[in-house]
């Protein structure tokens, strides 16, 4: 990745007094790549983005843009197009003037400004709204203006700070697909901050999962889902059943709550994704099988989520086809089964 890195964060640290907001962040973003910074609030993802934008000075480390050190370059000379969570549209300027703002600052000729604004307006389906003020637009339209204003300057890197969080659920999904299409078509190198793992999975080339200022894992959506590097990643990306497997009396592995396990590796923390669990009515014994009581059954449209309460107290998460709801009722006894291949060891330090 490194030889083609468009944006390269090297050992980035940001401290606020004795609090460490970002600890040793290393991240290389390739040209045309969309990387998501994903994590819960306070994990340092927004601070990282603001350091790249030039609004926050790093305490340590370097930021390279196309090989050039821009760590001390002021924000207005960085050539970044940022979309803010609040959109930060200039309330006193029309849609067209908002989009043209960056072009005017760059001294682009009047005719070209008009042309590029018109192209952006057409691209983002803002036709007919050019003369409106931001407050006269819907949330979705405001978001598109914010995107247009950031993209029209042809920035080296696009920075997105939770750009979908102020949209309602229905609009959010359509908008993110649209933005991904635009990003791929224009080949935009993009850094995207979000706390929504489904959103990150849906549109990112790679995801940087952050927690408490640290980068927990960097990988493609499939990698972070199927081979989580840490317990935190396993729990944050999708839903997970975790087992602390130790050698048991009989020589096999046993979880911390006494479930016999049959896994490819030795003693480790294992992840079992809910959709890998099979729920059957007839009891079974041996490893990778456990009986309990169906506690919750939630119908989700495309499937069913169930919670199997085990005698040891654990709530085992199960996901299956909608038919599961026909075969089981809350309160019924059931057995959960899975295969050794369904257990993924977490290479945790």
């Amino acid at each position, binding site marked *: 990745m490194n030889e083609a890195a468009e944006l390269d964060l090297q050992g980035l640290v940001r401290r606020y007094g004795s609090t460490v907001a970002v600890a040793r962040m290393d991240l290389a973003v390739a040209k045309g790549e969309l990387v998501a910074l994903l994590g819960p609030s306070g994990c340092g993802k927004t601070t990282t983005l603001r350091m790249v934008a030039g*609004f926050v000075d790093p305490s340590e480390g370097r930021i390279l843009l196309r090989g050039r050190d821009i760590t001390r370059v*002021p924000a207005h000379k960085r050539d970044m197009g940022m979309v803010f969570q609040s959109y*930060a549209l200039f*309330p*006193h300027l029309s849609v067209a003037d908002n989009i043209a703002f960056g072009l005017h*600052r760059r001294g682009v000729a009047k005719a070209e400004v008009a042309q590029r604004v018109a192209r952006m307006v057409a691209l983002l389906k803002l036709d007919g709204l050019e003369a409106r003020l931001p407050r006269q637009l819907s949330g979705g339209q405001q978001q598109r203006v914010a995107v247009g204003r950031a993209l029209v300057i042809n920035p080296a890197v696009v920075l997105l700070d939770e750009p979908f969080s102020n949209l309602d659920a229905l609009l959010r999904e359509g908008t993110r697909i649209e933005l991904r299409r635009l990003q791929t078509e224009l080949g935009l190198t993009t850094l995207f901050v979000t706390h929504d793992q489904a959103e990150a999975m849906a549109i990112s080339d790679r995801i940087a999962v952050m927690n408490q200022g640290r980068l927990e894992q960097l990988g493609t959506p499939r990698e972070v889902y199927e081979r989580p590097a840490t317990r935190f990643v396993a729990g944050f990306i999708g839903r997970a059943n975790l087992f602390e497997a130790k050698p048991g009396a009989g020589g096999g592995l046993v979880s911390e709550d006494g479930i016999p396990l049959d896994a490819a590796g030795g003693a480790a923390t294992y992840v079992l994704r809910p959709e890998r669990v099979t729920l059957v009515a007839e009891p079974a014994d041996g490893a990778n099988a456990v009986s309990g009581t169906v506690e919750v059954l939630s119908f989700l449209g495309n499937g069913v989520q169930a919670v199997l309460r085990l005698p040891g107290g654990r709530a085992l998460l199960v996901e299956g086809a909608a038919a599961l709801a026909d075969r089981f009722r809350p309160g019924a006894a059931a057995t959960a089964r899975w295969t050794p291949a369904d257990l993924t060891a977490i290479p945790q330090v």
Partner: protein
Amino acid sequence: MNSSARRSLVAAGLLAPAALLFALLFVWPQFRLLGLSFGNPAPFGLASYERFLGDSYYLGVLANSLALGACVTVVCLVLGFPLAFLLARAETRWAGLLLLLTTFPLWVSAVVRSFAWMVLFYRGGTISRLLQGSGLVPPDFQLLGTFSGVVIALAQVLLPIMILTLYAVIRGIDRDLEHAAMSLGAAPVVALWLVTIRLARGGIMAGSLLVFSLSVSAFATPSMVGGARAHFMAVTIYEQTLELLDWPFAAAISAILLAISLAVALTYGRLLGEGREEAR
């Protein structure tokens, strides 16, 4: 009686004491004053107004007061905006305390404060001595009794009002608007000019007009720091009322000052409304 009628009756009842007090202690005397100003020659005459508007001395007093208002406003705006901006954008918990500190001049009585300025401004006072030492002014120079002295002393009192007004407005402007402008290529000063100052225009108007109207009608500081040569409106009204006992004339000057203040307040209201509309 239906409930909406009852509600408006209750509202009227709650408003009555304040309205009565206002009518009795403000509206009624104000009308008496206005009546008095038209009382020369009795029963109705415009002699007092003719005297004021026809005498270059009194027109000079009016111009002097307006000039004082303009100068104090400019000084407060130039000194106040940067301070208000820094306080509004400071990422420290001391910002609140610092804002409180800037309001200290308001806590001290105008008379006490003006005495302090007199001490600093007279010929042997610290500030006058410093100026004499710099060689920029003649050796016997004193700021006491000068227009500049009054401007300095009044600006000190009214600066907190400007800062508080601007602070509130700037705090209401999303900081990310400045960030957005900068990320789009605007240098910080350009971002400040194109975004923050544009959006703070309502507050700048409000603060300026507030400081202006308070300066024009100020009495204690101009009369004490300005001394015998303090030819300002409020001081002239005082002289006419208590020293020359020409009440109709004093009433006419008051009415003129009131009309100016009223005009300023109305403009202020309209501009503020526009500013608010714009900042939304």
